[in-house]
């Protein structure tokens, strides 16, 4: 009993540590890739090739002044970043990184991720409301409207995955894809993949949809009044949420840690590579796509954002659901 708990705590610590390292370097990669997109070099000063830049940023954030604005709701103001980070970090407990590499293999893993991403909205709303600032408040209102709107097409895109698998367990979703000859759910439901990809951008407040923190009009949205380490927590949560969404895309549409069977039949040597490598490769491909989008696509207006959510993505996801239902009924009885 006690031993199990200790082992579990060590596992959690290892996952969290590795995750935080990945998040730190995601920031580095983002700055590097954005730099090269914009024909400059990105961070180069700290360490070889600027590799220690994340740690320098962290130290800088630690020693910044921690400012609580006058008239703010003090308790909620301090609680908001903790809520955001907790909700994102809890999502990692149900993600399978490789065969059997999952902290909690629960039956409702997919719903758990959805629940946590919808609880994360509260952190943003509280941050905006408790700051006692117009910009933060407007940012929070926008953000809650955006996240609620985009959760619906995302859920419907995931419903199609559920119809194909018949299970809410994330590991079972990967095993179900492994049974297909092409080894991925992206092939019949390319529309669902597209919808989820766009919704993931909106859910994590990434660039074409980063209205809540649009610098040109809202200073920094709900982050306006935050500084120092609290701001760092929001930053951490945003990048961790990118990892959660990339992992969900990998698990639900790209076959998780498995490779397509026709590839492994062609080159049996690929079976020797551990599954976590393929998982990370797929996750980083999607992360690169995120950063690429940030470097190229301009920001939408707010009414355009909601129009895309309700008038484009929702019908698309319903179409996808309909197609998948027919495919499931006709070809996979």
């Amino acid at each position, binding site marked *: 009993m006690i031993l199990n708990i200790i082992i579990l705590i060590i596992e959690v610590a290892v996952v969290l540590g590795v995750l935080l390292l990945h998040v730190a370097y995601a920031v580095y990669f983002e700055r590097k890739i954005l730099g090269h997109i914009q024909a400059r070099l990105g961070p180069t000063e700290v360490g070889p090739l600027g590799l220690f830049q994340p740690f320098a940023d962290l130290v800088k954030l630690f020693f910044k002044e921690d400012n609580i604005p006058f008239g703010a709701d003090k308790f909620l103001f301090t609680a908001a970043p903790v809520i955001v980070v907790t909700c994102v970090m809890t999502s990692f407990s149900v993600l399978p990184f490789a065969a059997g590499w999952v902290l909690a293999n629960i039956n*409702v893993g997919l719903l758990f991720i959805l*629940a946590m991403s919808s609880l994360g909205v509260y952190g943003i709303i509280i941050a905006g409301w408790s700051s006692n600032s117009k910009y933060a408040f407007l940012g929070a209102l926008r953000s*809650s409207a955006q996240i*609620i709107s985009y959760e619906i097409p995302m859920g419907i895109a995931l419903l199609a995955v559920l119809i194909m698998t018949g299970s*809410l367990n994330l590991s079972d979703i990967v095993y179900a894809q492994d049974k297909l000859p092409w080894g991925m759910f992206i092939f019949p439901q390319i529309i669902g993949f597209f919808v989820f990809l766009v919704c993931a951008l909106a859910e994590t407040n990434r660039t074409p949809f980063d209205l809540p923190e649009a610098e040109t009009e809202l200073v920094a949205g709900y982050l306006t009044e935050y500084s120092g380490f609290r701001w760092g927590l929001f930053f951490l949560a945003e990048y961790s949420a990118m990892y959660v969404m990339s992992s969900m895309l990998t698990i639900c549409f790209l076959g998780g840690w498995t490779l397509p069977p026709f590839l492994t039949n062609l080159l049996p040597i690929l079976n020797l590579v551990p599954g976590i490598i393929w998982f990370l490769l797929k996750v980083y491909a999607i992360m690169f796509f995120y950063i690429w989008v940030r470097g190229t696509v301009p920001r939408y207006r707010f009414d355009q954002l909601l129009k895309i959510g309700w008038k484009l993505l929702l019908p698309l996801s319903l179409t996808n659901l309909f197609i998948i239902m027919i495919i499931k009924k006709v070809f996979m009885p």
Partner: protein
Amino acid sequence: MSIPILFFSYFALASIVLSLIVVTRKNYIHAVLWTLLLFIHISGIYLFLNAEFFAMIQMIVYAGAILVMLIFVIMLLNVRHEDHLSDLSSLSIPKVFFVFCVFGILALALQASYLNTIGKFSIDVVNTFSDAKLLGQVFYSEANLPLIIMGVVLFVPMIAAIVLAGKRSDE
């Protein structure tokens, strides 16, 4: 004391205390946030009852949709708590007596409602298939009428909300 009883008593006590906190808050946003905490504890109680699907639905629908909608409206209208007409002032003895009567009736009547009949979904069955799968099977076989009613129940207020709230104020 065994561990299930320990956990249950924590969740039960916490939800009672939290619901007391909820009904006495003056600040609406604080009340909604305490309600959020209460709903999370209630979904913890559902986990004890082998209803993991329902626990997640509680979090997604109640915490993720209904309460966000409420908080959104409070923030949109920018309602502050109004100190005049102070709350809880209308607490009178007949009301308290009425509530105690309702509580007594509920507590007694619910005990009698337990029929001691054992259905086909024993704990072993729920553990081998999952809770969600069995619920889906029930929904699409015996309970298809509630499913259709649920569709109508969700469809009508959607139109009502759009008609009522989407009205432009002309003045």
